[in-house]
Structures are given as structure tokens and as C-alpha cells.
């Protein structure tokens, strides 16, 4: 098994007229936190949607665990252990936190087409679901409907639901966007803890948010990779600072 869980070769996506992502060669090392950052309009979200198969690439290939998943459907890729989160909170609003996690647990063990059996048969997952909720600090909210939770908790619930699938690679889309400071620290420590036995590719906007979190950072601007490296080297890199603060104008 190569030590890269995910690799892209010449990944490109053209929309009418201009290419949102052009010729991106990304390599995500196993059991690390890899951050994909860049200012607005850099093509982060397009890149993210290409990797999670919610968008079809115009050119290039995506290799996951040595397998070419370029043409695969989103649901199939999720079954291989590459699971994504969403920027706008992706929970099942009218299901309780426990039920949210259980929907994910249920898929793994196959009886999702059983229309003749009572759903109480799913109660055997409750214990694992409560453990996952506990992992993300939501054990007290198991029976609360997701819609009634504040934003930070919804984000934690989403991560618990993703973890339920025991994914190998978790793709997080701006997990800290729109959060207050105290929530950011909570989610950051949670991601750090998860990274111990999972690989995480995270799209984020700000440099310092990923500073103590990521092992490796790729900076995207205008759909292309500008620079790669760890936080220390990148903060010195003038091109990165300029990409963010922008070049002065004449």
C-alpha cells in the first residue's frame, strides 16, 4: 500500500469559459491531516466536490487506495471509506442525534431494505451510536432533534455520523466556517483526536485556523497549487501572504 491514500493527476474542471480547477496534482499521506486552503474563488470547494465525486472532472484522474475512482458515483466512493461532510450543516434535521448516527451505522450492516421488520431491530446499534456521540461530546443530546441544536453541535453531530462509517479518509468542508472562537477550539481538538487513526483532508479558508492542526498544507489560488508544505514554511512564503493579503495595486 503506497503511503499516499489519495492522489490526483492533472485534475481539471472547466465551467463555461474558465477553469475553476486546472491541473492539480495532490498527494494526501495516510494518517495525516492535510489542509487545502486559499482565498475565496481559489477553487477549494470545486476541488472538494471533484474529490467527493459530486462533480465530474473535465480532465485528470483521482486515485484512492490505489484504485481509480475518477468515474465512480458519490455513493460508491462513500462505500469505499471516502466520506465527506458539507459546508452548510448536513444533518437530518427531524431525526434525533442518536437516529442521525444510527442511519450511518445501519448502512454498513445491510438490512436497510428490510421493510417488513420493525425499526426496533436497529436498537442494537444504539450502544455504538451513543459511544460515537460521547466521542464528540454530544452524549447528553442523544434524544434532541438535530434541528434544535446550535451550529457548533450540529457540526459535531455531522462528524459523529461520518465516523460511524469508520471511514479511512474523511473530507471536511470548512468545518470551522461561521463559528465562534470557543466552538472552533472544541472542533479543532476533536479533529486532532480523530486524526490518530484516520486520514483527514480539510478545506479551510484561514491559515491560522489550520496552523496547529495540519501536518501538511496545500495553498490553492485561481484553481492551481501555489505552494505546499507545513505551516512554518508557508508563513514565510511571500507568495502565500500575497495571495491572501493581495498584491498592492499600481
Amino acid at each position, binding site marked *: 500500500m503506497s503511503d499516499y491514500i489519495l492522489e490526483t493527476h492533472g485534475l481539471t474542471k472547466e*465551467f*463555461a*469559459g*474558465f477553469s475553476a480547477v486546472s491541473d492539480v496534482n495532490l498527494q494526501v499521506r495516510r494518517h495525516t491531516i492535510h489542509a487545502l486552503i486559499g*482565498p*475565496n*474563488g*481559489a*477553487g477549494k470547494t470545486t476541488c472538494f466536490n471533484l474529490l467527493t465525486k459530486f462533480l465530474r472532472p473535465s480532465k485528470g484522474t483521482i486515485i484512492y487506495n490505489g484504485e481509480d475512482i475518477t468515474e465512480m458515483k458519490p455513493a460508491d466512493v462513500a462505500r469505499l471509506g471516502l466520506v465527506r461532510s458539507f459546508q452548510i450543516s448536513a444533518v437530518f434535521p427531524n431525526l434525533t442525534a442518536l437516529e442521525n448516527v444510527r442511519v450511518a451505522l445501519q448502512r454498513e450492516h445491510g438490512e436497510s431494505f428490510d421493510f417488513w421488520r420493525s425499526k426496533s431491530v436497529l436498537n442494537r446499534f444504539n450502544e455504538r451510536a451513543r459511544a460515537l456521540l460521547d466521542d464528540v461530546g454530544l452524549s447528553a443530546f442523544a434524544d434532541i432533534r438535530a434541528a434544535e441544536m446550535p*451550529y457548533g453541535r450540529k457540526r459535531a453531530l455531522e462528524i459523529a455520523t461520518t465516523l460511524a462509517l469508520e471511514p479511512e479518509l474523511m473530507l471536511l468542508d*470548512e468545518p470551522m*466556517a*461561521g463559528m*465562534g472562537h470557543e466552538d472552533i477550539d472544541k472542533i479543532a481538538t476533536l479533529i486532532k483526536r480523530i486524526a490518530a487513526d484516520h486520514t483527514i483532508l480539510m478545506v479551510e*479558508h*484561514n*491559515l*491560522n*485556523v489550520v496552523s496547529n492542526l495540519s501536518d501538511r498544507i496545500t495553498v490553492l489560488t*485561481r484553481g492551481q497549487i501555489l505552494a505546499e508544505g507545513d505551516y512554518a514554511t508557508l508563513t514565510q512564503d511571500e507568495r502565500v*501572504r500575497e495571495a*491572501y*493579503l*493581495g*498584491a*498592492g*495595486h*499600481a
Partner: protein
Amino acid sequence: MLEATAPLLDVKGLHAWYGESHILHGMDFHVRPGEVVTLLGRNGAGKSTTLKSIMGIIGKRRGSVMFEGHETIQLPSDRIARLGVAFCPEERGIFASLDVKENLLLPPAIRPGGMPVERIFDLFPNLKERLTSQGTKLSGGEQQMLAIARILRTGARFLMLDEPTEGLAPVIIQQIGRTISRLKAEGFTILLVEQNFRFAADLADRFYVVEHGQVIDTFASGELEANMQKLHHYLGV
């Protein structure tokens, strides 16, 4: 001299909601005639929502938005536009089913004194050859110029630009910077939302820092150097 004149735009206690999420928590700021004012802040702070609330294209809003002495908080967006407010959205909003010429001529003239088309072509020369090509077949930079050009024709004197430099090459950014300073020289009043801090620093007279849907600080352009550290912290760079 500027302090004496009444503000062109005066926003007080502005709250706004996207569906159920409460985005603006009481914005207070103003813009005087002829000024270029920039809203700074991190992603999700509510900068774009502020512009959209002023334009009246947000689900629910409360508070006061006075424009040239008119209270616009209750008005539908087409009535606000007719008061002389022009908006250039972050995603630029170029219509794919229209060609460049149709995109350019779409916004109706709401007041005499709009910029004549020849004048627009010398501000944005490369739009001239692309008139018949389809709206979205333009490059990012050309689309941004078209989005600015089409609101100059209408006679509106107050322009709201949402992240005009987003995703653009440095040389294009410089061209847009020159255009904005020429518009400022011609007496347009501009409210700018911009991530590209240095781009905004050279253009704006005053800055407001927005966080979690509120204005938390404000600087004049002269005070920038002194507050660089604080700004970096605010912008989380």
C-alpha cells in the same frame, strides 16, 4: 469637510436572517457622498449579507437603512435600486442565456447622467470585442468588468461591490483598482466588501471591521499602519 455633510447611506441596528440562521446582529455604520468605504472581516462574518440586506434581497431584515434620507428597510429591491443603489454580487451574476451586449444593456437607466457606452468601453476596452459572445464564455476578469460596467450605465451614484477581486490574476486586479479610483475621482460613492486587504487599503477612505454580524472596529485610511497587528488578528491571517 467630509464630516459635516449628511451620510448618503446610514445603517442603524440592522439585523438579517438567512432562513432561520441569524446572520446580522445589529450593524451600525454610514457612508458619506464621494467616499469609498470598505467592510473587512473573516469568512462568514456577514459582510456580503450586509450588502444584500441594504439591496433588499435577503429573506428577513429588521432595523434602519436610510439612503438619501429615505427609509428603505421595507422597500422591495426594485424600488431600492430605483433610488440610485447599484449592486455587483460576489458571484458577479452574469446571465448565461444572454450575450455580453444584452448583459451590458440589461439594467434599465433609473436616472439621467448614466455613463454613456463609449465611456464604458474606454474604461473596459476588452469588453468591446466580446459584445456578441455568450455571457459566461468570458474569463473571470472580463465577467467582473462586465458586472461593474453594466451598473455604471444606470445613473446610480452609489455602488456596492462584493469582493470584486475574488479569484482574479494580479494584472486584472490592478486594472479593477485603477477603475475604482477613477470612479471615485468622478464622484461615485462606493461601499466595498473585500478580502484582498492591500487592494482595499490603497482605495478606501474608511474601514469597518465586521465580526459575527456586528461592526467591532473602524479606522480611517491614515490609521492603518498603526493598527496592522490588530487587523491581522481580526482577519485571522
